[in-house]
C-alpha cells in the first residue's frame, strides 16, 4: 500500500534522507522509529506530497505522492507532528472546514470519535490544552475512514488513559484492514500496535524488524528490591548480569532469558520488582554499533 523506493532528499546543510526503501502492506501497521531529527517527518512529508524527492519515489496505493498528491490524500488520514490549527475558530468549526474541504457528508464517524475521546469540540482553539488539540487532530485524521493512516508522533500530549484509548482505536482500524504508519521516538509507544518496525537514523534506514523479534531481543533492566543488604550481596554474586546496584536494590539486565531469571530470583527474599525500559538510543545501540563497525555511511561520527 505504501511504497518508498530509493527516496532521497538532500537539504542544504548535508542533512536529509538517503536512499530509503521500505514497503507497508495493506492492513499492516508499520512503526517508524528514530531519534529526533533522524528524518522521520521528512519521510512523512514526502508521503503527504509536501516535499518533492531529489531522487526516488514515494507511492501510496500505486499513485505518486508528489505528482498525484491530491488524489493520494483522498485515501489518507494524516496527523501532523506539529499541532497548528487555524486562528479564531473552535474545534467543531475546524472539523467542519476539513470535512467540507473533503466533501464529507456524514458526521456519524466524527461524532462517535468525539464521544470516545470525550472533549468539548466547541472550545475555541486558542483555549485548548495540548492534549485536547491532539484529540481534535486525531478526529480530523480518522473521521473520513481513510484506507491509510499516517500518524506523526500521535500519542504525544495524551494522558495514559487516552493513550490506551488510542491504542484500542488503532487496533480496531487494523482489524478493518487499514494500513497504518506511525512514527515515534519511543519503542513503547508503538510496540503494542505495530507489526513491523523500521529504524531510521541520520536519514538512513538502518534496520527493519518484526516487532516480536525486537521485543525478544530488547534488553530490559529488572530492578529487584531485596529484604536486606546481605540478600542483595548474595544476588549480586549469583551470576546474573548485574547492571547497577544501590543499597538493597539490584538492577539486572535481561534479554530474553526470563525463565532463568525468575528461577534464580525464587531463592531470594524480594520486597519489590520494577521494570525499567530503555530509551531508544539504548534499545538500538545494537544497530548503531553494528552500523559503525560496518564502516557504512554513518561510520564517522
Amino acid at each position: 500500500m505504501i511504497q518508498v523506493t530509493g527516496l532521497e532528499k538532500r537539504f542544504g546543510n548535508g542533512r536529509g534522507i538517503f536512499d530509503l526503501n521500505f514497503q507497508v502492506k495493506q492492513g499492516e501497521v508499520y512503526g517508524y522509529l528514530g531519534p529526533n531529527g533522524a528524518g522521520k517527518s521528512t519521510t512523512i512529508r514526502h508521503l503527504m506530497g509536501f516535499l518533492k524527492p531529489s531522487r526516488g519515489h514515494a507511492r501510496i496505493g500505486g499513485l505518486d505522492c508528489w505528482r498525484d498528491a491530491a488524489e493520494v490524500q483522498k485515501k489518507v488520514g494524516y496527523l501532523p507532528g506539529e499541532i497548528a490549527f487555524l486562528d479564531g475558530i473552535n474545534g467543531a468549526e475546524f472539523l467542519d472546514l476539513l470535512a467540507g474541504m473533503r466533501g464529507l457528508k456524514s458526521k456519524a464517524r466524527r461524532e462517535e470519535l468525539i464521544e470516545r475521546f470525550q472533549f468539548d469540540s466547541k472550545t475555541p482553539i486558542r483555549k485548548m490544552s495540548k492534549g485536547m488539540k491532539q484529540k481534535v487532530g486525531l478526529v480530523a485524521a480518522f473521521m473520513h475512514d481513510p484506507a491509510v493512516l499516517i500518524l506523526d508522533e500521535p500519542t504525544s500530549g495524551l494522558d495514559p488513559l487516552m493513550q490506551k484509548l488510542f491504542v484500542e482505536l488503532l487496533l480496531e482500524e487494523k482489524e478493518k484492514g487499514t494500513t497504518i504508519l506511525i512514527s515515534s521516538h519511543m519503542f513503547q509507544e508503538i510496540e503494542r500496535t505495530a507489526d513491523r518496525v523500521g529504524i531510521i537514523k541520520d536519514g538512513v534506514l538502518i534496520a527493519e524488524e518484526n516487532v516480536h523479534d525486537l521485543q525478544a531481543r530488547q534488553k530490559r533492566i529488572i530492578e529487584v528490591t531485596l529484604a536486606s543488604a546481605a540478600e542483595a550481596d548474595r544476588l549480586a554474586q549469583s551470576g546474573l548480569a548485574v547492571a547497577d546496584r544501590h543499597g538493597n536494590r539490584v538492577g539486572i539486565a535481561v534479554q530474553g532469558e526470563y525463565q532463568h531469571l525468575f528461577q534464580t530470583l525464587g531463592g531470594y527474599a524480594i520486597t519489590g520488582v520494577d521494570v525499567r525500559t530503555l530509551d531508544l538510543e539504548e534499545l538500538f545501540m545494537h544497530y548503531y554499533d553494528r552500523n559503525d563497525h560496518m564502516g557504512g555511511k554513518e561510520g564517522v561520527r
Partner: protein
Amino acid sequence: MNLALYRSMMKTHARTLFGYVSGIVLYQWLVIWIFPTIADNPNINELINSMPEGMRKAFGIEGGLNELTDYLANEFYGLLFVLILMIYSVMTAIQLVARLIDRGSMSYLLATSVSRSQVAVTQALVLISGLLLIALSSTVGGIAGVEWFVPERHTFETAAFVQINLMGMLLFLVIGGYSFLFSCLFNDEKRALAAAAGLTVLFYAADLVGKLSSDLDWLQNVTVFTLYRPAEIAQGTVEILPTAIGLAIAAVVLFVGSVTVFQKRDLPL
C-alpha cells in the same frame, strides 16, 4: 477554488475586513463633512497658493481645494486611502499563505485532498474579495457622503470619483499580488512580511521623492504608485484605460505566478 475553505476564511476574516471598511468610510465622511467649511474659506486656498510648487505637487494639492472631487482626490485618495490599503493588502496577503505555512496549519488544509493550486486560488480570492469590497464601500460611501454632507451648489464629478476608486483598487490588486507572491514564496512569515512591506514602502518613498525633487523625478518610473494619479483623474487630464488594463494584467500575472510557485515548491509542513 474550494467553497468550504473560502467560506471559512471569509468568516474569520470578516471582522478585520469590517474594521478596514468602516475605518475608510468613516474617515472619508469626515473629510467630506469638513469640505464646505474649507471651500468657503478663502484664506486656506491663498495659503496653498503661497506654498512652493514642488511641495504642492508632493501633497497633490496643486489644484487647490475648492473643487470637491479634487479635494477628495487629494485629501483622501492621495494619502489615507493609500496608507490603509497598503497595510491591508500586505498584511492580508501574508496571513493567507505564509502564516499558515510558518505555523504549520497549511498541512491540515493540504491533507484534505484539495489540491495545492485550489488552496492557493481560494486564498487569493479571499484577498481579492476583500479589496473589491473595500473599493466598493469607499465608492458607495463617498457618493452617499457627498449627498448627505455637501450643499448642492458644489459640483461633484461622480464619474471621475468612480474612476479614482477603480484605479485605487487595481493598484492594490497589484500590490496585493506581489505581496501574495512573497507569501507563497517564503517559509517564514516574518521574511515574507519584510519583503512585501519593504518593497511597498520603497515604491511609496520613490513616488514621494520623485514628486518632490525634479532631479530625482526618474524615480517615478520605477514605482507602481506612478500609475495611480487621483488628482489628475479628478481634473480629467489623464486617460485611465491603458493604465487600468496594464495594472489588471500585472495583477493577473502576479496571482497566476503565485499559484504556480505554491504548486511547485517544497513545503516544510
